[in-house]
């Protein structure tokens, strides 16, 4: 509904682009974006160069920002090569120009009280949690992290997590590091032990859904950053929707770019993502625009 922050469109210069395990860590000089960034927001990057056939921007959670420095403010993202756009991004070298819009979307909501918090990241989904952790600590919240991935090389930020968090738990599907299993294998006990009333999560949809369910069972709130295919990233196209129950109890198809990417876990109809659930406001439409 509302644009929380005024995003900027910046033609930035790439400062560095390094491999980190299975991921790429990209730093771009993008003055002005850092100052506006709050944890959980994202950037949308133009890919492919001027005469590309790829029209749509690619979205990435903001990993870190620096408001200034020798080169001016920077934005950092961590990404996996998933297709042709990220492949192009992976080929960027220092000095190349990159068009960035950000910050976009709504950030994680921070607790008013200094409560213990659990932060769950799946794969590169850990990236936006470090900025969140900083903010939480500033407010006196104890930060416990859970990092999960398919395999060890797909974990991101383990050392950083260990350095900065009260506790860190790790799960991998193949057991190559930490507990063999999913983040939800370790989450219930951690919630129990820490008594955390809130869980923050970023990662694949299946993980978010499972985390939201565990949180709900334990009476904790969850804040989940989702990833839906976005054509515009700024709220004008209506491609990025998912079914979310509003304060009024009604389910609506809600834009994840402007109303998200962070949603309350108990509000998303996880099982019905990819459908228009019966009873959604305006459903089922008879006919309509293709």
């Amino acid at each position, binding site marked *: 509904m509302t644009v929380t922050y005024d995003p900027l469109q910046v033609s930035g210069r790439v400062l560095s682009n390094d491999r980190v395990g299975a991921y790429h860590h990209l730093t771009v000089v993008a003055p002005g974006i850092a100052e506006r960034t709050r944890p959980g927001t994202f950037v949308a990057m133009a890919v492919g160069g001027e005469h590309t056939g790829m029209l749509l921007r690619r979205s990435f959670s903001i990993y870190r920002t620096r408001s200034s420095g020798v080169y001016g403010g920077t934005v950092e993202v961590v990404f996996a090569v998933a297709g042709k756009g990220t492949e192009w991004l992976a080929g960027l070298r220092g000095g190349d120009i990159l068009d960035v819009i950000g910050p976009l979307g709504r950030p994680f909501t921070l607790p008013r009280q200094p409560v213990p918090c659990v932060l769950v990241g799946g794969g590169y989904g850990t990236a936006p949690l470090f900025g969140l952790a900083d903010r939480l600590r500033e407010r006196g919240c104890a930060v416990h992290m859970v990092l999960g991935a398919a395999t060890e090389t797909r974990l991101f930020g383990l050392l950083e997590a260990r350095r900065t968090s009260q506790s860190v738990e790790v799960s991998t599907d193949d057991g190559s590091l930490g507990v063999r299993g999913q983040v939800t294998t370790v989450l219930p006990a951690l919630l129990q032990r820490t008594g955390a009333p809130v869980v923050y999560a970023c990662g694949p949809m299946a993980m978010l859904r499972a985390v939201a369910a565990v949180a709900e069972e334990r009476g904790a709130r969850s804040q989940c950053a989702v990833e839906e295919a976005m054509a515009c990233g*700024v709220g004008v196209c209506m491609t990025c929707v998912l079914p979310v129950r509003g304060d009024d109890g009604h389910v609506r198809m809600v834009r994840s770019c402007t109303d998200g990417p962070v949603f309350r876990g108990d509000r998303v109809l996880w099982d019905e993502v990819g459908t228009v659930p019966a009873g959604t406001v305006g459903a089922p439409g008879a006919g309509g625009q293709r």
Partner: protein
Amino acid sequence: MTVEVAGVRYPTPVMTASGCAAAGRELTPFLDLAAIGAVVTKSVMLDARSGRATPRMVETPSGMLNSIGLQGPGIDTFLADDLPWLVKQGAQPVVSIAGGSLGEYAELARRVGMAPGVAAVEVNISCPNVENRGLVFACDPFQAARVISATRRGIPKDIPVLAKLSPDVTDIVTVAEAVMEGGASGLSMVNTTLGLAIDPVTLRPALGGVTGGLSGPAIRPLALRCVWQVYAAMPEVPIIGIGGIRTGFDALEFLAAGASAVQVGTSTFHDPSSPARVADELRSELALRAAVSPREVVGVAHRPAGTSALRAEVSM
């Protein structure tokens, strides 16, 4: 760079395209709504619509497919919230309406016709007619004309009614003639062309809605051809050119082919400042050719080679 289209004056010839700018609000960080040609709003229907299931888009070479399904709040919310907001911003609101039956279009027209501040009404006729086996109005000259006359009746005389045509027809000139006879004040050309993509994992259609509308630079030659054909047949009819416009030169192509103004759609997703940037670039393209106003180039591509004064000024 003001232009007049069907009796209404716009600050520039470059507007947003319906469905690619919502109701304008989200673009305010990137451009000044009052300074662009017009804000053509997302097609609104009578009632709130949830739209289609996701995935709603697929990127394609120099284009994209979308299958939104006209998600929207319904006309009353639109008229209560979005339109007054746009008017307050000083924007030129062109209200796009869409219906599933003649009655729905008529009712929409009646309500929009009573709202203050509407610059023009654009009628999206690329909708299935629930009373005619779901056939798209725009693909049948007779039905298309009926929708336009039903709409026209509800709208005050001084507000132009623009018929938005689909390129997916054997003969676009026939449809254009029909809607003009039905009472349209001008034509918006074109809507998306129907396309499909296959998902690499499921090998099923990639869009939730199976087929979707293809847009972006990929379709520009097709859209330009439609404008060219209709202008050639009816040079007196105001045309707004739409389809794959990304730069000022692209906009110029449409003017030369016969459009009096243009709309920028998909390009906005790449660069949300597009409608303003394209106007700036068009200004330079015109200056380069020593054209004092956009009017001067409208339809110039139809004049025999060598008869236009514009050519000599260019050195490219």
